[in-house]
């Protein structure tokens, strides 16, 4: 059998897996399980990037999405208490409306794509997704380069980092000071009590 046949089989198997896991992400009641299924969906997407011969993107998917974003989400799940882990029952009416909206969207887009199927070639075009080409395109300042967008996104990352720090520490510092003062007073009282008892 040829190599292309194997890749086709792998692509279909992982597509089915990704669909199942994506359904489980939105269907399961437990938030922690949902996060684990999300990891599997992202892994399947990394496999798709490899199949589309974009290995750099697969690596970035693994590093940033699974190593960064999902770990952050799991961290927040562990910060919240057990009561929040399992979501309460959602009303049937809301479920039906949401399912109807998403199914309508799915059928609408698929029918539009099906009507315009003659625009879609069966064979992939010729290009090279290696890191040198992507980096050149990313850092080119003249015609059709993305240098300005690259710089703006670096600013966005900086701004979001500062914003997250401000949000996290604005109340945190004050309550920490209060807590420290409180604990200091408590220990002082304890020692005073012990001294009076000894005396």
């Amino acid at each position, binding site marked *: 059998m040829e190599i292309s046949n194997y890749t086709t089989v792998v692509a279909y198997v992982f597509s089915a897996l990704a669909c199942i896991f994506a359904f489980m992400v939105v269907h399961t009641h437990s938030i922690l399980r949902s996060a684990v299924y999300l990891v599997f969906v992202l892994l399947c997407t990394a496999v798709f990037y490899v199949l589309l011969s974009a290995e750099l993107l697969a690596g970035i998917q693994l590093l940033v999405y699974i190593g960064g974003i999902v770990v952050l*989400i799991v961290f927040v799940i562990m910060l919240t208490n057990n009561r929040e882990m399992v979501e309460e029952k959602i009303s049937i009416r809301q479920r039906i409306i949401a399912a109807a909206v998403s199914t309508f969207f799915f059928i609408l887009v698929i029918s539009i794509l099906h009507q315009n199927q003659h625009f879609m070639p069966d064979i992939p075009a*010729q290009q090279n997704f290696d890191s040198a080409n992507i980096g050149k395109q990313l850092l080119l300042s003249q015609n059709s380069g993305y240098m300005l967008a690259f710089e703006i996104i670096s600013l966005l990352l900086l701004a979001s980092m500062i914003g997250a720090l401000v*949000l996290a520490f604005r109340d945190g510092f004050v309550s920490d000071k209060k807590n420290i003062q409180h604990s200091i007073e408590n220990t002082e009282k304890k020692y005073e009590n012990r001294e009076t008892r000894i005396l």
Partner: protein
Amino acid sequence: MNMFHWMILIVFLFSAGLYGTLVRRNTLGILMSVELMLNAAALNFVVMNKYIMNHSVDGAVMTLFIVAIAAAEVVVAVAIFITLLSHKNSMDIRQVNALKN
């Protein structure tokens, strides 16, 4: 796997994300559904680039941008959720109906 099959997969992933965004009440669940939608959009860029654009890597660059913006979005969202948790002691989206107090 031709392009139409890839598109079916991507639209299914996006629809699943849409369903989750509409049906969830936990803010983290909504965030994960949005991640699913962003992931589908990024995959869409790469598939379009692979099949339609000849000698070009624009879609891959767009996917890099989507990943970077998703990371920034998640950081800010998590900071907001932790502030919400300390103020309201809950992660329910229905508690977030006022900008102040």
